[in-house]
């Protein structure tokens, strides 16, 4: 087929991707946007299949069948609470595909004419090698992130003191091999060496990062997978790969940045697994001793009975307990009793951006009840009861008040300003940041110990009877 026509069609499909992302800027148009982006993909793939450069179809058909079935099953079976894992997995596939395609293109070129000599040859090889490097890191890094989130391996930082030096050494080795390959593309030992070094690098970079920081890692790897696709586009001189790859690259970077800002940490800080240094060690016992009051679900129901305004603050624990449906029922019962209910959504509550929104949407909570941090914070003073369900760090007043605290400066939900605070969690153990939370020891705080789902169901039942 005429290559200009193919290029025009690719442009067309790039426009669909752009319109698709534009659609994602509003909840109303989001479904349509996703559809448009899928159509763009379909157009690009179909025109490629019709293109003359494809000779044999058997591997393609087999691959699409296998991939389609696996992807389809994963997408329909996955629990909403496991979304972070799912995205890590998909991301790894994206990286792997870039790696595979770069390697195949390299071998193909070597097998036929080889790379041109001169500047053009060097540029062509360097794009291949960059794709290989980024693709490998994305592949193995995402797999490790997946394993951590799925708790196949410990979510703790895994590693040893010198791991930073190992990473640095691996990275330098990869760059050196990449550079040498540019001038001697036929040296395929170097090529496999580059793949090996990059794959190991992906693993050793991600292993030492704590499980809760995985979303940042995933967003970053998402960005990489986009950049890898764009680099592959340079290899093949394919506009749609370049355009959509860089759109994805930009998207990942911005999400990474949003998360870092909301956690008040720098990206290097996340990647090298250090929390901001606290100037003093904080003793949980000293904070909690004798000051924590606990209550039974029935007592909470009685308090809610007389409340006019209640704010529900969900956190990672709600996802863990799969309590979103129970929470929604509690909300319904309260509203039946004429209580005004809103949800306070912290930008990094849970384990990925927008995590709470997705879960509550699954439980059919209308999204105008989900209020962002900046808008809900001024209302806590007029709130009778704040119910904190499995949230911890995002409510920790130390972030606001204690200059010595490692999370000082992270914006939080001012739950402590509410008349009464009810905290539902299993114990006094800390959240992701590993810090005690003075909120639990406040005069107006009541702890309800237990699994999130069960506690909420109990409260709902008592309230319904009352």
């Amino acid at each position, binding site marked *: 087929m005429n290559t200009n026509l193919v290029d025009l069609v690719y442009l067309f499909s790039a426009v669909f991707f752009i319109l698709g992302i534009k659609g994602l800027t509003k909840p109303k148009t*989001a479904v349509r946007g996703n559809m448009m982006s899928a159509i763009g993909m379909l157009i690009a793939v179909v025109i490629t299949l019709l293109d003359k450069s494809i000779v044999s179809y058997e591997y393609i058909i087999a691959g699409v069948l296998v991939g389609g079935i696996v992807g389809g099953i994963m997408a329909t079976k996955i629990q909403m609470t496991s979304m972070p894992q799912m995205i890590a997995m*998909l991301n790894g596939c994206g990286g792997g595909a870039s790696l595979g395609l770069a390697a195949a293109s390299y071998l*193909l070129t070597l097998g036929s004419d080889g790379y041109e000599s001169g500047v053009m040859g060097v540029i062509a090889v360097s794009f291949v090698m960059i794709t290989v490097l980024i693709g490998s890191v994305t592949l193995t890094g995402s797999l490790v992130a997946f394993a951590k989130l799925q708790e196949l391996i410990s979510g703790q930082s895994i590693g040893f003191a010198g791991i930073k030096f190992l990473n640095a050494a691996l990275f330098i080795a990869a760059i050196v091999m990449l550079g040498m390959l540019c001038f001697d593309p036929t040296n395929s030992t170097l090529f496999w060496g580059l793949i090996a070094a990059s794959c190991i690098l992906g693993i050793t970079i991600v292993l030492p990062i704590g499980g809760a920081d995985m979303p940042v890692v995933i967003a970053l790897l998402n960005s990489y997978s986009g950049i*890898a696709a764009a680099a592959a586009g340079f290899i093949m001189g394919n506009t749609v790969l370049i355009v*959509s790859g860089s759109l994805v690259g930009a998207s990942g970077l911005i999400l990474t940045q949003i998360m870092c800002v909301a956690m008040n940490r720098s990206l290097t800080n996340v990647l090298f697994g250090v929390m901001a240094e606290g100037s003093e060690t904080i003793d949980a016992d000293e904070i909690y001793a004798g000051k924590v009051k606990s209550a039974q679900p029935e007592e909470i129901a009685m308090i809610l009975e007389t409340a006019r305004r209640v704010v529900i603050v969900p956190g990672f624990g709600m996802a863990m307990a799969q309590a979103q449906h129970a929470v929604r029922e509690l909300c319904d019962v309260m509203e039946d009793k004429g209580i005004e209910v809103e949800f306070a959504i912290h*930008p990094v509550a849970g384990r990925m951006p927008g995590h709470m929104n997705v879960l509550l949407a699954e439980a059919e909570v*209308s999204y105008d009840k989900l209020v962002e941090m900046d808008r809900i914070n001024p209302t806590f003073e007029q709130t009778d009861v704040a119910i904190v369900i499995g949230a911890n760090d995002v409510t920790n007043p130390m972030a606001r008040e204690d200059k010595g605290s490692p999370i000082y400066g992270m914006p939080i939900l001012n739950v402590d300003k509410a008349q009464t605070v009810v905290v539902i969690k299993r114990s006094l153990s800390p959240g992701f940041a590993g810090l005690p939370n003075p909120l639990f020891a406040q005069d107006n705080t009541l702890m309800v110990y237990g699994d999130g789902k069960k506690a909420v169901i109990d409260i709902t039942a008592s309230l319904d009877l009352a």
Partner: protein
Amino acid sequence: MEMIVMQLALFVLSLFLGVELITKVPPTLHTPLMSGTNAISGITLVGAVIAAGAGDSASGLVHALGFIAVVMATVNVIGGYLVTNRMLAMFKRKN
């Protein structure tokens, strides 16, 4: 060579466009955004298809790599769009 400069121009413009578009996405939609853009990065399927369909002249290794690339890219594409659609449908349902 001229082509490469043009491609670079496309790359730079798309980055800018990406930044402008993504900063407009509200926090509510950040998770679907992640999986949705992830699906878009499966566009490597286009390249993978070309590699896998390279014909008999290519070695078995090329075919194998191409096949793996097609499988992974397809998982990325199909899985990504479906799961995004599932999430977004939940947002729509109630509103």
